[in-house]
């Protein structure tokens, strides 16, 4: 049994487990203590000092986020000295902050703004320090804008980038009044190891780190009668978007999202889920081909395990950190990019539209997708495959701007041709989902039977463990896959680049022998992506994950190869997986990058 500690907070007695912080104990009493540098995903920093409280008997105030409870402690969270100090600290932060709130992209979703509103900082006469600073503004990255004038030095981004992502693209530089959050040698984010994952963006309490938004560009395209604007939506968007409209309890908002997109004026609203299913067909075939080469042909050049390539944050990470392993990456483009290429080829031909007139927009839970769409490799259709990538947050902004009352919308269905989805595609939005979808299809291709899990739910690959492992024994395969008889297919899954790095280290050292490994850059997979609504916390990620698996369970088709539009595209257009045309349109490769 854990030891219980007795203390009082504002005179109210409470007994909590040892190691509980004063902040957590207060929360149990429904006492809110304001915080800024504190975030549930991160280690405690205790540097903003906004959460200080009075502990009777000590001269100094104590930071409630960093102070463990002690027996007999008497805490005051709203005494005069606490209020005065807290107000001072907020005033100090504002004096260093470019508080031009009405022109800020984060206006309305800023923790500093909320705090100064709560404390009514209306008459601060501290000296405005902003004119004395040489704040930098970096908008060279296609994904993320870093505006130092909005930074409050809470270091949440720094902790995110090192603790969760093991990148440290952002770190603290200089000291004293020059102390700032910086990249290596103050290079633009574009030129350093930044994976563009956007985890810093969803952890930033202010407008110092935001996505580069393409809202106006998309409005321009929608307003242009000569353009045919189509949109695709990633699986994780439908379980996050509702949060922007206060429909948290509901979880999935797929139908309303489709309606909203139609009302925004998109000429066709289709689904990235379709190309997620297509990815399974291509990647599953690639896996089986590599296995055959390795087992039957004993080809020493074949690279196993096969790594998934859906997450562009992961791709840029491996290009920087483990370039020697690039050969293990699946050559499949991500679902977003497959969709983009097909939009300007297959879709254009089918609908008899000049591909030059098509503007292809994608709605993603991700900021790295913006970078991915910009990659020079992603122009196989003859055009830029995906023209604009909007995050879940940007879509919410557009819906609000258009005056659409989202919660009251009817539910509509995706448009045909590239809008059919399966449960296998939806779970791409959760860590382990690509693996589960691939296993559902690959196992059936090889054996002619369903995967040996109740209701097709491959539970070992689900959940939030940083690194997950699973294996399936292949028995009685169909004759053409006879060489796989008795093979135990070993898989692993990592989400968050810190876990990815750990798993990669194991794989490179030869300690772990897998056949297939899924990597996702963000914690929880795409549902916890850097383009998802702010805030994102462990509880919120859990809710989104539950919604994803509920969507999977609710769909009539749950295996990628049974998607009728997938069957149709192979019959009418692509021929077969890894065929000549799919090779040209749906596959690519990647290149080593410097480690700075």
């Amino acid at each position, binding site marked *: 049994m854990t030891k219980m500690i007795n203390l009082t907070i504002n005179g109210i007695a409470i007994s909590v487990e040892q190691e509980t912080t004063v902040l957590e104990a207060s929360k149990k009493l429904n006492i809110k203590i304001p915080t800024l540098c504190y975030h549930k995903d991160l280690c405690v920093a205790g540097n903003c*000092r906004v959460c200080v409280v009075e502990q009777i008997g000590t001269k100094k*105030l104590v930071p409630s986020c960093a*102070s463990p409870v002690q027996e007999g402690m008497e805490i005051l969270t709203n005494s005069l000295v606490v209020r005065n100090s807290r107000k001072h600290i907020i005033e100090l932060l504002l004096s260093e902050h470019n508080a031009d709130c009405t022109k800020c992209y984060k206006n309305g979703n800023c923790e500093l703004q909320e705090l100064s509103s709560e404390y009514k900082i209306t008459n601060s006469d501290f*000296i405005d320090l902003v004119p004395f600073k040489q704040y930098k503004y970096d908008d060279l990255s296609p994904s993320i804008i870093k505006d130092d004038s909005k930074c409050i030095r809470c270091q949440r981004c720094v902790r995110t980038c090192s603790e969760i992502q093991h990148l440290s693209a952002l770190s603290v530089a200089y*000291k004293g009044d020059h102390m700032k959050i910086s990249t290596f040698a103050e290079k633009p984010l574009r030129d350093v190891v930044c994976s563009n994952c956007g985890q810093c963006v969803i952890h930033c309490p202010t407008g110092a780190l935001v996505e580069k938004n393409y809202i106006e560009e998309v409005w321009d395209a929608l307003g242009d009668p000569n353009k045919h604007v189509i949109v695709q939506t990633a699986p994780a968007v439908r379980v996050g978007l509702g949060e922007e409209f206060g429909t948290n309890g509901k979880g999935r908002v797929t139908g309303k999202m489709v309606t909203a997109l139609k009302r925004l004026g998109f000429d066709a609203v289709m689904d990235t889920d379709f190309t997620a299913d297509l990815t399974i067909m291509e990647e599953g075939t690639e896996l089986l081909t590599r296995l055959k080469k390795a087992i039957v042909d004993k080809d020493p050049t074949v690279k196993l395990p096969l790594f998934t390539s859906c997450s562009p944050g992961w791709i840029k990470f491996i290009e920087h950190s483990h370039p020697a392993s690039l050969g293990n990456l699946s050559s499949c483009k991500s679902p977003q990019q497959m969709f983009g290429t097909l939009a300007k080829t297959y879709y254009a031909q089918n609908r008899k539209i000049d591909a030059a007139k098509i503007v292809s927009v994608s709605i993603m839970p991700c900021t790295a997708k913006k970078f991915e769409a910009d990659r020079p490799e992603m122009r196989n259709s003859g055009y830029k495959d995906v023209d604009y990538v909007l995050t879940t947050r940007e879509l919410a902004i557009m819906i609000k701007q258009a005056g659409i009352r989202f919660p009251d919308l009817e539910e509509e269905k995706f448009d045909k041709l590239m809008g059919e989805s399966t449960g296998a595609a939806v779970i791409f939005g959760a860590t382990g989902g690509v693996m589960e979808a691939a296993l559902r299809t690959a196992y059936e291709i090889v054996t002619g039977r369903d995967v040996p899990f109740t209701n097709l739910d491959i539970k070992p690959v689900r959940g939030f463990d940083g690194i997950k492992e699973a294996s399936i024994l292949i028995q009685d395969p169909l004759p053409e896959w006879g060489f796989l008889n008795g093979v135990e297919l070993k898989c692993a899954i990592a989400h968050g680049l810190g876990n990815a790095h750990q798993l990669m280290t194991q794989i490179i050292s030869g300690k772990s022998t897998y056949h297939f490994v899924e990597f996702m850059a963000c914690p929880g997979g795409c549902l916890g992506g850097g383009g998802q609504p702010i805030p994102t916390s462990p509880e919120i990620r859990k809710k989104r994950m539950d919604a994803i698996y509920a969507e999977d369970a609710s769909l009539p088709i749950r295996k990628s190869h049974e998607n009728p539009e997938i069957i149709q595209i192979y019959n009418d257009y692509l021929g077969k997986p890894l065929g000549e045309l799919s090779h040209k349109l749906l596959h690519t490769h990647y290149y080593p990058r410097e480690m700075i």
Partner: protein
Amino acid sequence: MAKKQLRRMDLIFANDDDYVEILQRTFKSSNEDIIDEMISSGLKGRGGAGFPTGLKWKLTAESTSKKKYVICNADEGEPGTFKDREILTQVPYKVLTGMAVCAKVTGATEGFIYLRGEYKFLVPLLEKELKRFRIICKDLGLDFKVNIFLGSGAYICGEESALMESMEGKRGEPRNKPPFPTDSGYMGKPTVINNVETLAHTFTIFKYGAEKFRDLGVQDSRGSKLFSVSGDTPNPGIYELELGMTVQDFVDDFSDGDCKAVQVGGASGFLVPRKRFNETAIGYQGKLTGISLPTGGSMMLFNSSRSMYNVLNNYLEFFQEESCGQCTPCRVGCQQLVRGIDAVKRGQKPAAYLDKLLKLTDTMKVTAKCGLGQSVANSFQSIVENFREEMIY
């Protein structure tokens, strides 16, 4: 008020070439006895904060961790302090004796001297001494190795937890406390961290006994202390004086005859104006009546030719630059103070703005993460309150 006459001592720099003998004798005592002796001596940390040294050793000794460390803080960075350099030059063996005994009683197997970067010239001398000491320790059955870690010049790294962060290869930023170093210090292991001078004083205790040490000083402030005397004085230098003297006693001995104020404890200390010389004692707060000032030993004398505005501005600019920058009250507070007194001086802010700044320093004192930000209030408040007119006109 302290009644004793100021006495000059010569304990620290006395050439005690019988130190091996002292060490051997001390090693024969039980760990408990040594700790009791340390506690009863009343020795408090000489870096300025004044934590009882014996208690620090005891807390670390009580920890069950297999790995423990002893660190000698030689990052002497407080403006106006230059005593530790001299100790390490003249009597390094006293510091090492203190570290060795500390290692014995706490169970530490490894020690470090965190040496201020600018003291690099001391490295060859210290290395030689360390080598010799390793053998002496071995002969006494103690496996204890001391290494030198060179700082890189940041003032904040003199703060014990920032110092350990920097030793671990991280940015020198103070940690949250608790946990304290005695529980979780260098590399997360229990660590004793003592100032150079504190360790040198332990030698005095081992040699002459706690009782003799206690005889020096007054009430809660026991023993002698090294003072780095600078400023408007005909006799700058390092002096060992009994604790508990009044500032008047000190000024009588060191002033150029025109002393208007003394800054006790460097930039992070207090300014004592002439009218308070008599009522202010130098020592640790506690049972001393009147005003008592703890100090790392920096004593700066200012005569009537000095502008106290310039003095304060100089300190504040120092803090503005040397703050690690992580916590809000210290990082931004220092900038506000520097620009604030400038604005008052120029007439851009009314004189009453000084009161707002005084309140700000009250906040900094109770909310800053470490001693740096907390102690900015010391010099600010004591200078602004006593020389307000110099701030305005």
